[in-house]
């Protein structure tokens, strides 16, 4: 009887232990929240005058099933190093040193917003250009930074999502548009197939952003044009005092163009681009690079096949000769009559 009671108590104890442990284990889990934000437009390029007031708006949305709170921050921005068309907010130190941010002129209608799922929200902003603003291009970004609700209980990482609308504001009329082509190369000088990337680096020496556009014209050893590749078709801009790297992919996928021009041997690539808004043709940037396209593996296999064929033919002929001689052999059987 005593043993039965002891077993019952043991059973209850084990059950309670499992119950308590389940709480300990579950305490390490946490709900994960997805983040999402969209905006339109993605950027603005304005031309304003000293003393002018500009009112603008942008639309934001959240495509997750849960409401997310975003802090709205107005700050100057810079380009990610060598990456044209990108924008990251300035740090406070950078902001204080920058002469061309429009942070103090720009005000968003709200400082925080809870984005309800699948609903467009309109954010208004106002830019008041000071009357004594000097000529130049000023930058400001209206950024949305997600508020983190997650608290990690173990080791790991929390994520924050930031999306902003950069605004480039030109004050004044006449700007110096000047640029230097620092690099126009291919990563190799020899390729097996006509698939390669051209790397171009341009430095903006002017006092406003530039948007270089142009073409890379390829020609073969017979000076026949084999391709004309648009340069910077997406119009990515380089901010003042910045450089921009552009990658231009060329993937022809064949050794013969539609015009029956052969894409083998030394290929010459000529870059011609313009960047000025006024009379762009007067200051083009040009460069040239030569590279080889030679499908050596295919050529090697073809040569081996040709050599092997020649050898086989010769061996077969050599083997046939004795047979021919045997026709005159005294041991040959005469044909039946």
């Amino acid at each position: 009887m005593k043993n039965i009671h002891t077993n019952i108590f043991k059973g209850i104890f084990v059950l309670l232990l499992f119950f308590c442990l389940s709480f300990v284990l579950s305490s390490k889990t946490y709900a994960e929240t997805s983040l999402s934000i969209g905006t339109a437009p993605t950027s603005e390029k304005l031309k304003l005058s000293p003393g002018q007031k500009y009112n603008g708006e942008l639309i934001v949305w959240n495509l997750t099933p849960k409401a997310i709170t975003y802090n709205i921050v107005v700050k100057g921005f810079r380009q990610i190093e060598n990456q044209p068309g990108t924008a990251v907010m300035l740090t406070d130190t950078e902001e204080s040193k920058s002469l061309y941010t429009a942070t103090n002129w720009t005000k968003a209608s709200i400082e925080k917003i809870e984005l309800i799922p699948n609903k467009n929200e309109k954010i208004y902003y106002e830019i008041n250009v000071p009357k004594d603003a000097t000529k130049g291009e000023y930058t400001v970004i209206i950024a949305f930074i997600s508020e983190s609700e997650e608290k990690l209980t173990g080791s790991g990482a929390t994520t924050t999502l930031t999306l902003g609308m950069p605004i480039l504001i030109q004050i004044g009329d006449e700007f110096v548009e000047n640029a230097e082509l620092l690099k126009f190369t291919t990563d190799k000088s020899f390729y097996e197939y006509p698939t390669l990337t051209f790397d171009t680096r341009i430095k903006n020496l002017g006092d406003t952003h530039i948007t270089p556009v142009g073409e890379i014209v390829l020609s073969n050893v017979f000076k026949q044009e084999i391709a004309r590749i648009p340069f910077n078709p997406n119009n990515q801009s380089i901010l003042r005092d910045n450089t921009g790297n552009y990658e231009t992919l060329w993937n022809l996928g064949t050794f013969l163009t539609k015009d029956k021009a052969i894409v083998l041997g030394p290929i010459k690539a000529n870059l011609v681009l313009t960047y000025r808004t006024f009379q762009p043709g007067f200051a083009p940037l040009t460069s040239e690079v030569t590279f080889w396209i030679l499908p050596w593996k295919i050529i090697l296999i073809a040569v081996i096949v040709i050599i092997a064929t020649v050898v086989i033919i010769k061996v077969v002929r050599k083997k046939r000769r004795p047979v021919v001689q045997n026709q005159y052999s005294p041991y040959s059987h005469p044909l039946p009559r």
Partner: protein
Amino acid sequence: MKKSGLITGSISVLVLTICFVLISPVFTSKAGALTAAYLYLSRIQSNINGSSATVEYVLAIDTAQTIPSGGTVTISFPDGDDAGWCRTAGSLTVAGVSSSTADYATTNWAIDAVMPTSSSLTAVCAQGAGVSSVDKITISNVGTLTAGTTYGVKITNGSAAGVIGTASAAGEHDVSVEAKNGATIDSSTFGLYLVASDTVVVSATVAAVPSVTCSISTSAVSLGSLYPGGSYATVNHTISTTTSTTTSGYYWASYGAGDGSTDAGLYKSTATTYLIASTGSGTIGLTGVNAEGFGMTVSDPDAGGAATVPADFSDGTAGTFGALDRTVAGAQLILYQNGAQASAENATITYGARAGTSAVAGSYSESVTFVCGGYY
């Protein structure tokens, strides 16, 4: 002569009275009201002319008494609407229906069965002209209509002459429906309301402005337990991007917080503090002897397509991760695409971390900020 005439007259009246009393029950009309009836119009706009705009009628009736087979069902429109409902007189197309949009389920105002026919249903539309002559639609060869069953019938323009429409004036119009076979008649009159316009034009303009939508699948990921001197651990989540066709492309950059002064990385902020560092640039190998560090890789969302992952974050060597830098000043590009991305494109972010033998026990965390945008 006068007396005989009076007698003859009296006898005649008596005979007629007796005859009337005997015969009159034969002509008794069994008239009643329909239990339920509705007329559903596919358009409720006034002045539908039946040619440039057409209308269909669905009639549902439930009689209070059984109407024997071979009878008719007639829809009569108001006297003032001549040639409005029956635009062109003639044969109409008629067919029994077992349901309609206007059915009110579980009530008598829901069609139970198609209207039966004694041979083949026919419908004719006749125009009214002047006072006491109304537009009428008569359905003939109707089968037995059993009381308690709601029958449905659809009437549309005939293949030749018959054309139906709606009255020219908006507002209420009294419509009578009668089911009849001989003296057995059930009928009802109800109002039908026409509006001047039954179409709502919804307009919108799809803006041509560039747009970008950026998403992260989770706001927190756990690396589980790291063991000093043990192997590296990984955990992942996804980032996703969509743009409008007018957008020049998108980019993602990221940076960490680290210990707030030296490097990004997993940081133990409580005493004794310790940083499992990310070196700020290049890659971090976590497979070497007593290697320690934190980094991440990004998968190419379209493998050879327009999206590109910079070399540091796309090293395919197991245990090699791209190093993160600290603060917004150290933001590094991790994924970009020149050109629009119409459908959502996912890239997997994989974090890798390894604790060296000197790492202090405790909870470590890093706050990774992802910056997303469309090119300007």
